[in-house]
C-alpha cells in the first residue's frame, strides 16, 4: 500500500531475534498508523493480567503515512505500551526527526518484546538491524548517551532516542528522550525500556517512501505548509514559544498554581515566554524536522548557579516547575527542566509530585526527617532541584514520588489523596478545567489518563471551530453545555493526529478536510473529513476497550475534587463547571454504556466487532 513501508520490525530482547513482518493492509487502512496501529497490535498482544514490568508488556514505536517525506512536523515518532505509571493504555510521542528516519529505513513500526539479559541498544540502518552492546552508555545521562551512540555509529542525519538513569532504574515517570532533548514524556515508557535493558534505539533511513503521485503530494504539502505558516497562532508560538501562555495566565487562569489551589500568582510576570525571549533565549537551528511553526526554544545560562545550554523550558515545564511549586526564578526553572531531561523523567509528573510533596510538608504530613533534611517549602529552588535528583535516583522520599502521586498518596495516607492531582494515575497537565471547561471531560476520559493532548481542546475552547464535526462557532470557555461534545470531537480528531504522527500544534491550522487531503495524497485511499473523524473515533474506542479489559469503568472517569472547587482568587474564582452534566452529554454522544464500556452497537458501527466478546462475554 502506498504511503506505508508495509512492514514492522519485531525485536525479541530475550532471545535476541529480530524479524521483519508484513503489516496487514486492513490494519493500515483502518487504524492509519502511529497510535492507531499500536492499539490494533497491542490489543491482541499485551495480556490483561500481570505486572506492567512483566516481560510480556511490549513497546510499540510507530509512524504513519505522512512521515518520511516533507510533510510539516512529520519528524515525530509515537511510542505505545501498557503504562508503568498508570497500568493502562499509553501513547506518547516526541518531535525531532526520529519518525522521519524510521519510515525511511523502511518500517512503519518496531515492536519490542521480552527482556534483554544485558544493556543493549537497537541499531537500524535501513535493512541492517542488530542489537548492540550498550554497556558504555548504561548509567549515562541522556545527552551523554545520545552523544556516545551518535559517535559510535557515526552516520550524520541519523536519529537516536534513549533513556536516562531514571528509566534504567525503572522510575515510573521515566521518559524517553529523542534526537536532542525531545521527550516522549508521559506515562513511563522510559521505565519500561529500562526494565527491558534497552538503552536506546538508533535509526537511519535513506529510502524515499512511495506516494501515488509525487506532484499531487508536493502540491498538498505546500498548501498545508503555507496554511500553517500563515496561521495566527502558529505565528505567536513561533515568536514566543509555548511559554507565551504563561504570560496570559493571570487573565485565563489556565496555569495551575500551588498544587491547583490559587488563582493568582505574581511569578507569571517573571516565568513566561516573553520574559524568556528577553533574557536567556538564544538563536539556534531548528530541532524539529520540517516544522514551519518552530515553537521549540533554546536557552543558555552562562553564569551563576544554574548554568546550562539546551532546549526548553516549554509551557508545561514552566508551570510544573514554576507556578505549581511557587518558583518564580526563570533560570532555575530552565535548569530544573534541563535536569529532568538529562535524567529522563517527565517534567509534568515530576513538578506535580514535588508540588504534592510541598503541600504534604506544609501540612506536617512530611517532615525534615522524611526528606533527608530538605526544607520542602514552597518556592525553595534548592529543594526542587534536590527532589528531582532524588526522584531520578530513587533515593529516600524521591523513590516514592517517582512512582507518581497516586501511589505516593496510597503509601502516605493521612488525607494526601485529596491533593494528589491525577486522573487514572497520570498527573494532570498544566491546564485548568476551571479556566477552559472542556478540559474536564477530556481529562476524565483520555485513554492514557489525565491528558490534554489526546483531545487538545485548548486549541478550540473559546478560540476555534471545526465545521466538519458540527462545531461552527467558538464556544464560551465557561459554558458547561457543549463541552462533552467538544471533548468528543477533538479527541477523535487528535487520535488521527497521533496516528498520522504529526505535531498537535498544527491543529490550529490543519482541518479534518486538510488532513483528509494529505492522507489521500500519501496513500491513494480516498479520505474525506468524515472518514478521518470516523477513523479517530475507531482508534479512540479501541484504546478505551484496551482499558476496559484491564478493568477500567465509568467510576474511573472522574476529576479530582480539588478541580471542582473554586480557586482562591484569580480570574476563575467561584466559576465551576457542571462536570456531571458534561459527562452525561459526553457519554450519550460516545454511545457508551453507564458502566463505561462502548456499546455493542457503537463497536459494530466502528468495525470493532472483535472487541465485543472480550467486553461482553
Amino acid at each position: 500500500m502506498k504511503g506505508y513501508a508495509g512492514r514492522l520490525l519485531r525485536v525479541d530482547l530475550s532471545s535476541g531475534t529480530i524479524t521483519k513482518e508484513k503489516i496487514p493492509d486492513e490494519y493500515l487502512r483502518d487504524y492509519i498508523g502511529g497510535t492507531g496501529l499500536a492499539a490494533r497490535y497491542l490489543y491482541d498482544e499485551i495480556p490483561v493480567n500481570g505486572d506492567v514490568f512483566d516481560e510480556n508488556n511490549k513497546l510499540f514505536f510507530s509512524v504513519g503515512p505522512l512521515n518520511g517525506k516533507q510533510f510539516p512536523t512529520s519528524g515525530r515518532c509515537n511510542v505505545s505500551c501498557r503504562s508503568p505509571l498508570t497500568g493502562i493504555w499509553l501513547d506518547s510521542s516526541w518531535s525531532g526527526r526520529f519518525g522521519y528516519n524510521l519510515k525511511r529505513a523502511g518500517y512503519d513500526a518496531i515492536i519490542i518484546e521480552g527482556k534483554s539479559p544485558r544493556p543493549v541498544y537497537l541499531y537500524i540502518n535501513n535493512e541492517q538491524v542488530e542489537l548492540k552492546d550498550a554497556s558504555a552508555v548504561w548509567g549515562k545521562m541522556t545527552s551523554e548517551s545520545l552523544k556516545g551512540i551518535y559517535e559510535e555509529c557515526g552516520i550524520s542525519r541519523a536519529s537516536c532516542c534513549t533513556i536516562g538513569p531514571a528509566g534504567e532504574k525503572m522510575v515510573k515517570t521515566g521518559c524517553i528522550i529523542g534526537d536532542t532533548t525531545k521527550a516522549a514524556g508521559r506515562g513511563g515508557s522510559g521505565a519500561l525500556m529500562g526494565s527491558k535493558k534497552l538503552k536506546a534505539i538508533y535509526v537511519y533511513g535513506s529510502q524515499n517512501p512511495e506516494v501515488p503521485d509525487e506532484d499531487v503530494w508536493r502540491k498538498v504539502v505546500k498548501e498545508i505548509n503555507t496554511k500553517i505558516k500563515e496561521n495566527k497562532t502558529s505565528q505567536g508560538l513561533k515568536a514566543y514559544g509555548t511559554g507565551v501562555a504563561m504570560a496570559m495566565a493571570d487573565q485565563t487562569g489556565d496555569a495551575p498554581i500551588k498544587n491547583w489551589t490559587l488563582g493568582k500568582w505574581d511569578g507569571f510576570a517573571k516565568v513566561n515566554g516573553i520574559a524568556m525571549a528577553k533574557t536567556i533565549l538564544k538563536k539556534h537551528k531548528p530541532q524539529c524536522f520540517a516544522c514551519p511553526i518552530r515553537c521549540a526554544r533554546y536557552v543558555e545560562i552562562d553564569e551563576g548557579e544554574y548554568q546550562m545550554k539546551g532546549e526548553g523550558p516549554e509551557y508545561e515545564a514552566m508551570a510544573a516547575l514554576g507556578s505549581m511549586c511557587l518558583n518564580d526564578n526563570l533560570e532555575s526553572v530552565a535548569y530544573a527542566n534541563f535536569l529532568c531531561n538529562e535524567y529522563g523523567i517527565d517534567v509534568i509528573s515530576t513538578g506535580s509530585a514535588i508540588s504534592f510533596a510541598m503541600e504534604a510538608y506544609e501540612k506536617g504530613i512530611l517532615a525534615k526527617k522524611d526528606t533527608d533534611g530538605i526544607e520542602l517549602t514552597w518556592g525553595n529552588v534548592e529543594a526542587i532541584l534536590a527532589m528531582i535528583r532524588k526522584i531520578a535516583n530513587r533515593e529516600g522520599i524521591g523513590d516514592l514520588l517517582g512512582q507518581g502521586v497516586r501511589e505516593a498518596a496510597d503509601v502516605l495516607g493521612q488525607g494526601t489523596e485529596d491533593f494528589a492531582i491525577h486522573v487514572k494515575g497520570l498527573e494532570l497537565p498544566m491546564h485548568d478545567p476551571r479556566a477552559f471547561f472542556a478540559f474536564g471531560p477530556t481529562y476524565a476520559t483520555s485513554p492514557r489518563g489525565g491528558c490534554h493532548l489526546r483531545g487538545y481542546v485548548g486549541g478550540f475552547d473559546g478560540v476555534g471551530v471545526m465545521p466538519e464535526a458540527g462545531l461552527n462557532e467558538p464556544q464560551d470557555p465557561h459554558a458547561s453545555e457543549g463541552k462533552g461534545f467538544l471533548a468528543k470531537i477533538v479527541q477523535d480528531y487528535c487520535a488521527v493526529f497521533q496516528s498520522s504522527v504529526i505535531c498537535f500544534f498544527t491543529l490550529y491550522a490543519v482541518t479534518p478536510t486538510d488532513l483528509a487531503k494529505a492522507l489521500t495524497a500519501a496513500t491513494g485511499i480516498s479520505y474525506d473529513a468524515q472518514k478521518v473523524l470516523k477513523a479517530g473515533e475507531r482508534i479512540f474506542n479501541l484504546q478505551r476497550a484496551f482499558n476496559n479489559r484491564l478493568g477500567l469503568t465509568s467510576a474511573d472517569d472522574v476529576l479530582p475534587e480539588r478541580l471542582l472547587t473554586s480557586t482562591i482568587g484569580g480570574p476563575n474564582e467561584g466559576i465551576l463547571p457542571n462536570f456531571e452534566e458534561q459527562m452525561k452529554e459526553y457519554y450519550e454522544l460516545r454511545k457508551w454504556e453507564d458502566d463505561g464500556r462502548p456499546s455493542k452497537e457503537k463497536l459494530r458501527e466502528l468495525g470493532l466487532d472483535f472487541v465485543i466478546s472480550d467486553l461482553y462475554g
Partner: protein
Amino acid sequence: MICMVKFKVRLYGLIPDEFMIKELTLPEPFNLERLEKEIIKRFGDRIHTDYISDQGLLNHQLVRVGDPSGKRLDYGYDISEIEEIWFIVPITGG
C-alpha cells in the same frame, strides 16, 4: 477642563507575532468602546482581521479584556481608573 489619563494596555495575541505593552493617554472618563476604537486606530492595520468585529471594535468572541486581577471588562462603563488593561487571545501552551 479636559483631564487626560495615562494607562497601559497589553495586546497579547491580537498582532500574532508581536505581543506588546503600550502606554496610552485618553481624556477621562472613557469606556471600553472608546479605548478599542483608539487601539484599532493605532494598531488596526496589524491586528488580525478575525479579531476586529463588524462594528469596528474588537471581537469579544475571541478577544478577552480584563483588568490586572483578571476580572473581565465589558462595554458601557467608565474604565479610566484602571491602570493596566489586558487584551488577550488565549493560547493554551503545550
